[in-house]
């Protein structure tokens, strides 16, 4: 597997400066993601996962080291970037469909075909019939799914997802994960996927990067050698269980 490197972090640190002091969120972290690879990031709360995604997105500057996307240093968000934030970040004065269409509108690409695409994405995330609702009429999980549809609208080649399924029940969560894999296979893209769920990371990813508690560094990298296409039934495979327990060990969870 000698694919091009899509995302590369070299000795990256990130320190936040606030009125109350400094917080070293990420320290000398190095990692890579190949083109079209699905990489999951696992780590305890506050270890710097969101910070890492924001550095790759070009939203937060690294205070040391280099962040490269397709070989170029990141200074501002790239055009081909799709991002699902940890909170849904919907525009509360726009209906669901207009939230999904916002990226197209903002870049002057809203047309009938885009609208069709937005409707198809809403169907995909199970929100048909909610097009004209306002965000305050949605549940937390529904809002998250809208933000997922929005991130997919412009077919990004690099997709950064920060606990996108955090507010979903187990069943919907798995369905959405499998749907995401389908989209990923249809329109190849590189995905960095932050999650707290070990089994979700095993189910979806090519590779799982485990981070240490803050300041975040790479504690372990585990390649998930389960066959594709993946499905929920793979949870019963012995290999699935092995990988889960390896990751549990790495996370320091007693089994």
């Amino acid at each position, binding site marked *: 597997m000698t694919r091009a490197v899509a995302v590369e972090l070299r000795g990256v640190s990130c320190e936040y400066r606030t009125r109350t002091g400094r917080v070293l969120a990420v320290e000398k972290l190095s990692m890579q993601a190949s083109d079209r690879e699905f990489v999951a990031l696992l780590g305890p709360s506050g270890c710097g996962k969101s910070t890492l995604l924001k550095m790759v997105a070009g*939203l937060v500057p690294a205070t040391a080291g280099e962040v490269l996307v397709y070989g170029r240093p990141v200074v501002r968000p790239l055009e081909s*970037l799709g991002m699902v934030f940890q909170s849904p970040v919907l*525009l509360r*004065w726009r209906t669901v469909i207009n939230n999904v269409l916002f990226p197209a509108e*903002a*870049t002057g690409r809203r047309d009938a075909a885009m609208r069709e695409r937005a409707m198809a994405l809403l169907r995909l995330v199970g929100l048909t019939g909610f097009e004209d609702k306002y*965000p305050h009429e949605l549940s937390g999980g529904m809002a998250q799914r809208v933000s997922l549809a929005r991130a997919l609208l412009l077919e990004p080649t690099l997709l950064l997802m920060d606990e996108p399924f955090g507010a979903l029940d187990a069943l919907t969560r798995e369905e959405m994960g499998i749907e995401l894999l389908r989209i990923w296979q249809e329109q190849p893209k590189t995905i960095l996927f932050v999650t707290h769920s070990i089994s979700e990371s095993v189910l979806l990813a090519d590779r799982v990067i485990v981070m240490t508690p803050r300041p975040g560094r790479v504690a372990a990298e585990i390649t998930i050698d389960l066959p594709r296409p993946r499905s929920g039934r793979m949870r019963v495979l012995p290999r699935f269980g092995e990988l889960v327990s390896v990751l549990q060990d790495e996370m320091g969870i007693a089994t």
Partner: protein
Amino acid sequence: MSTSSGRTRSASDRLSFFGTPIATLAGLVALWQLVVSLFSIPTFILPGPLVVWRTAVEFGANWVPHVLATVAIALLGFGVAIVVGVLLAIIIVHSRTLSRVLTPAIVIMQIVPKIAFAPLFLIWFGLGPLPIVVVTFLVAFFPMVVNAAVGLAEIERDLLDLARVLRLNWWKVLWSIRFPTALPHIFGGLKIASTLAVIGAIIGEFVGSNRGLGYLILIANNNLNTPLALAAIALISLFGLALYAAIVLLEMISLPWKPVEAGGLESVAQV
């Protein structure tokens, strides 16, 4: 009232929404008439509502120029206050340097008793509507700037991050994110400013004018024509109420995404 999340107001809710204040008002007017009749208060001190009503009707077409003058001045001053207030707020939110210069200037302008300047405006801007419009503007614009600035600055960090991921320029951020976020605050400012604009116009007319409801009150007072003065005050109140209602209506139309709040007085509480 317990329509905390639902969009629709029930019929009985709507009835009490409009009905209760009207009933209260009617009760007060009846009480007023009762007190005046019971204690035989002389008309030039306190005329009853019936006398006021009769005087108002008799005055007939004479009202027209006065009402038009006051309405025009109040609306003009209010309009200028809206435009200047929102523009200043945009500048304050976008430039830290200008904000450091403007904010103290605006606060000082608010603290200085503007009404005391009204006679000076007559000297500076001459007789006519201009000095009155200036007073109206000065009285009304402070809540506009403050509310608009608070609203425009209120944007969450995540929303700004989204804007950056979508590579929006500052104008698009202003128009499609900051402005809609600020709209509820701007409406709060409009409600306060509208009531102040009417007051500002009347005070301006007190100081120097030859037309308008404020002017009419002065004349009526000089002639001990208390019923006419009260009728003018009632018309001013009616105009203020209509302006306020128009803003509330506009707010309901432009903020369909805002969940209906419980009372209806939340907006008045801001005043």
